[in-house]
């Protein structure tokens, strides 16, 4: 491929989730040149893996579709998927970025017909369903994937599967000789929209995630509820495939805890309230949701949604942080604890437990440039000279709505940097 042309007037946006797309588009629609890099094979990030949004319960595909249309209509954004930032040197207005582009083994002539996928037999754990099921090693990430282009997993390169995929492709889009590329880019400002990742639930030892199959995380529950998820939208529990009717939600799983994440992840209360409505949607009046909480933080207008759920007879609230989970012989998780309203000791069995897992900044797992300042939890504030800043949930635990607001604000800061650089050069 040809290296993108970038100058000190270009804005580099790292991360192609809802925040990165928004920041890139806002800047581009103001007439700035943007390079948008994304590590995975598709844009959309974690937003594309949600079933519905709160509070309006609409589908993320809607918001993504609008952004993708804006993207296709704009010539100033250059999108690079399967690309990681290996390093950034320099200062405000004058950065040198090193990008590593992993081979996709499928070029831009791909028509997304799916013949390669049918020809391949190897399967890999599906990263877009948090590993809950398998996906063919030649695949399109998901229905909303952008670009709409297949890819071959590196694990099948050099095997007969890869040759079969190549033979099956009618348009000759498969190129097994693709190599990793390194690209140097000059940019004026950098926006870190690297987003978040669910905290490692296995570290919360008393909850038994990883030991008890019927203890799952809230992001996995999103996939269970989604018709394009591993169960076709049915709420089937992992241990025996039985339909889960009596579901417990544990709040602050990893958040507000000095032993895990010290911050409040902000989204989990609303995510759980939303997910109780998935249970109602699937099971009607026979649904039973129990929310175990310290306190419910549904801020601003989202309080209305909380009050709506409080009126729902299928949802029960227990003011208590669950102390530990045990497992019954039939696979039911049993929740042990003491409630704060009367100090009653309980041991309650449920079909399925959903941990409202906390948000950890994804950037905790990547090497940021030296001069990027982060807070005590690792969320990105930016560089002291203002040439780099965080956007969306990379900068603070935010829901989709507030991530978009944050990204728009960050875009303005980047535009300011470019504007000032341009006037200094003039």
């Amino acid at each position, binding site marked *: 491929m040809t290296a993108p042309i970038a100058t000190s007037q270009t804005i580099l946006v790292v991360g192609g989730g809802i925040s990165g797309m928004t920041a890139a588009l806002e800047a581009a629609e103001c007439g700035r040149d943007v390079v948008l890099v994304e590590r995975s094979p598709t844009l959309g990030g974690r937003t594309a893996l949600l079933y519905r949004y709160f509070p309006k319960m609409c589908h993320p595909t809607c918001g993504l579709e609008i952004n993708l249309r804006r993207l296709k209509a704009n010539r100033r954004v250059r999108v690079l998927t399967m690309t990681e930032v290996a390093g950034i040197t320099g200062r405000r207005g004058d950065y040198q970025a090193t990008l590593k582009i992993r081979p996709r083994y499928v070029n831009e002539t791909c028509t997304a017909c799916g013949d390669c996928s049918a020809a391949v037999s190897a399967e890999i754990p599906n990263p877009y369903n948090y590993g809950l099921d398998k996906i063919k090693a030649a695949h399109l990430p998901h229905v909303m994937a952008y670009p709409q282009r297949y890819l071959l997993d590196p694990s099948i390169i050099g095997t007969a599967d890869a040759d079969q995929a190549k033979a099956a492709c009618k348009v000759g889009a498969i190129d097994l000789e693709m190599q990793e590329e390194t690209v140097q880019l000059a940019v004026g400002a950098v926006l870190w929209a690297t987003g978040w990742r669910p905290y490692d639930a296995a570290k919360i030892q*008393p909850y038994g995630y990883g030991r008890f199959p019927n203890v799952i995380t809230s992001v996995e529950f999103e996939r269970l509820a989604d018709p394009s998820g591993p169960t076709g939208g049915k709420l089937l529990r992992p241990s025996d495939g039985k339909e889960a009717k009596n579901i417990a939600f544990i709040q*602050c799983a990893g958040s*507000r*805890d*000095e*032993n*895990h994440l010290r911050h409040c992840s902000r989204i989990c209360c609303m995510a759980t309230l939303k997910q109780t409505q998935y249970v109602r949607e699937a099971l009607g009046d026979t649904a039973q949701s129990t929310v175990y909480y*310290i306190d419910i933080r549904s801020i601003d207008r989202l309080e209305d949604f909380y009050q709506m759920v409080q009126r729902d007879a299928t949802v029960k609230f227990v003011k*208590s*942080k*669950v*102390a*530990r989970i045990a497992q019954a012989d039939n696979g039911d998780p049993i929740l*042990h*604890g*003491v*409630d*704060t309203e009367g*100090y009653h*000791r309980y041991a309650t069995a449920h079909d399925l437990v959903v941990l409202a897992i906390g948000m950890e900044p994804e950037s905790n797992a990547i090497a940021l440039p030296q001069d990027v300042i982060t807070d005590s939890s690792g969320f990105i504030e930016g560089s002291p000279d203002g040439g780099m800043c965080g956007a969306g949930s990379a900068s603070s635990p935010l829901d989709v709505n507030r991530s978009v607001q944050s990204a728009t604000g960050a875009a303005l800061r980047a535009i300011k940097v470019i504007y000032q650089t341009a006037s200094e050069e003039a």
Partner: protein
Amino acid sequence: MHALRTTGHQTIPAVAARYRNNFLKEVEAHVEDGEWVKMCMQCGVCAGSCPLGAHWEHPPQELFMMIRAGKRAEVLTSDAMWMCTSCYNCVVRCPRKLPITQIMHGIASYAQELGLAPEVQPTRDFSIQFWKNCTKTGRVNEMKLTVGLYFKDGLVAGIKQVMNMLPVALGLMKAGRLNPFELLRGHSPKDQKGIAAMLKRARAIEAQRAPVTH
């Protein structure tokens, strides 16, 4: 204007008094690690994690709330904090890292200091015996301590206990871990006078501390 200026200590009506957190302030001033009590966010993990929790009158979470609610008599005469076995399960799990075990012992020893601790409480009995035993010479005399505990409920009960534990005692003697002659005199540390002087000084420092006011 006049009315505003006279809003002093005396004019606060009785109904407002219970909002003044006097007992919390007392705990902060006199209980070891008491300043942590206000940090509790009432999540309940300590109560649910306590292996003896079901046998407590009030779990730690409830005790902290009672302190904040000013329930002085109920807290200090309670048997709850004496039930703590120092397993530290609550301390390692507390999301706010409160030193819960230490606070439990702090409240217990404060109640003992004030003479409010429950009369019949095995942990308290043991603590008193242990303290007397080890401060006498500066070393714990295990023979005297165990025998003292066995016979605390009378001669018959004591003999029964001794007979029950005899195989264990013989095993320990065989292994050289228990010396029956300790019952007669017992050994003492090299500098017994030094330890006595240290304890005397510690008591003097304690006596200088601000007296309890409430």
